[in-house]
């Protein structure tokens, strides 16, 4: 077990410098040891321990962090950048893995550097996993079923729109339309759900909801009401099959025409 720590201001500056260095030279390594002690980190309070492990996906990471931080008020954790940045360092091999040549690809810094005031907080691979799982728990699969270094397009499209991500009924609709629960082993997004070529795909749904939210009180609607509101392009995802056209019946006469 590892005692959880939190980065100091000095630790934060050092981490940023390390990220810049690795981004410029992807073969550079991150030195973990210096972040396990002062002056770069201090013990997090209250004292908590966690088991550093390999997480199959962000769902497992979110669930584990949720259990570790269960007793800490949400609004304290959400504003504590030091602990999220320290955790990112501990999980660095998973959030910024090396490719087969040993190079790390460092993406946008908001994925690794947590800033409570940043409107792109949802991009942080560790803090957002915890926060989304905390809010949606069993329903968070659709957002978090990716490796730790990946943010799904669905998450990016939803999480940047506060009006959508905070609406639990909308999330229920998304799950009903685009997620298969996997009783037969096929757990994951339905085929074509994230394809922009598919009619009624999830991007179309998000665009439609954004438009509707401007005009209608969507937040007050139940998930059934939202489903009923959707136009026919979404029927496929609702499980409504196309009705085959009725066959035309030929008319017939009861009179026989004879040659006299």
């Amino acid at each position, binding site marked *: 077990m590892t005692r959880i720590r*939190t980065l*100091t*201001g*000095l630790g*934060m*500056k050092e981490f*940023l410098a390390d990220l810049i260095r690795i981004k410029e030279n992807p073969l550079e390594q991150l030195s973990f040891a210096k972040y396990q002690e*002062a*002056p770069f980190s*201090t013990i997090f309070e209250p004292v908590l321990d966690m088991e550093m492990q390999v997480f199959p996906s962000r769902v497992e990471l979110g669930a584990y962090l949720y259990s570790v931080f269960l007793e800490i008020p*949400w*609004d304290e954790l*959400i*504003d*504590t*950048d*030091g602990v999220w940045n320290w955790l990112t360092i501990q999980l660095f091999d998973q959030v910024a893995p090396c490719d087969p040549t040993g190079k790390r690809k460092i993406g946008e810094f908001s994925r690794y*550097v947590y*800033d*409570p*005031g*940043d409107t792109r*907080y949802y991009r942080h691979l560790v803090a957002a996993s915890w*926060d*989304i799982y905390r*809010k949606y728990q069993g329903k968070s699969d659709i957002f978090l079923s990716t490796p730790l270094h990946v943010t799904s397009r669905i998450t990016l499209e939803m*999480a940047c729109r*506060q*009006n959508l*991500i*905070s*609406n639990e009924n909308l999330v229920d609709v998304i799950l009903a339309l685009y997620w298969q629960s996997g009783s037969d082993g096929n757990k994951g997004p339905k085929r074509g759900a994230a394809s922009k070529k598919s009619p009624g795909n999830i991007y179309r749904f998000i665009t439609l909801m954004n438009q509707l939210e*401007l*005009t*209608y*009180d969507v*937040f*007050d*609607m139940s998930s059934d*009401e939202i489903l009923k*509101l959707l136009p026919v392009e979404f029927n496929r995802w609702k499980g409504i099959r196309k009705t085959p056209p009725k066959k035309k019946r030929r008319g017939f006469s009861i009179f026989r025409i004879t040659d006299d």
Partner: protein
Amino acid sequence: MKRRINFTGKKKIPSKNVQIQVIRDNGAIKTFNATINLEGMDLPADAGVFVEVHYRLNRKRFDFGTAGAIVQPPDTDISDLGKSENLLFRVKVVDKLGRYGLILAEADKIRSKGEVEGDSSIQSILPSEFDHDLGQQIWRLRYDGQEPILEFNKNIPDIRSLAKSDTMFFFYVYPQVIRELLTYMLLIEFVDPLDPTEEWQKNWLDFARKIYPEDYPDQCKRDIPESKGEILAWIENVVNDFSLSHTGKWERFLKSFNGGQTR
């Protein structure tokens, strides 16, 4: 020019018609009060009025009665929603008779103005901007807009987080911000403390008075030197009491000189 087509005739509620005040208890956010003025907007009297509060993934909704009879509900508990400077409020007027709740009028992205009962956070009355190139200055106050803006230097790494939660930064910056702004208001603009003309002036005077309620000054009399001295003394007392009201932060500030945590 970008043109917007308003198909449904949705009206915008002017921001000055909505006043939100967050109420704290021992520093923690508990509830809010909302004053909503819909006069002159020609809205159906039976349209529903709702206030939604959101931060990140969380949203709460409160029923404020109807456009003809706006009533704050008894419970406006937002204690589980986070810090006030991050909370956003949205006021909606909704046609409840229709099938899908057409929004008739709206005010969005409203922040609370000023706080009640003892909190000395200045962030809620002093807008900040973090995208300025200030050379080798850390901050400055800009006065050329509708209200003063605190500008921070974007070239400083992690400046937003520092401004918000670093204790060293707090004590190096905010007491001087208060001193400069009050000096500007009372000794350069000659604002009358008993009759401020702008809302931001009233907010600042209320803020200062909550911190140091004694010896509230009169308007500066330019021809009486003692008048200026009294105002300066009052400002110093405000700054002093502001700094003294953050004992916990001060202790962390002192510890930081030994390499400890500053956040």
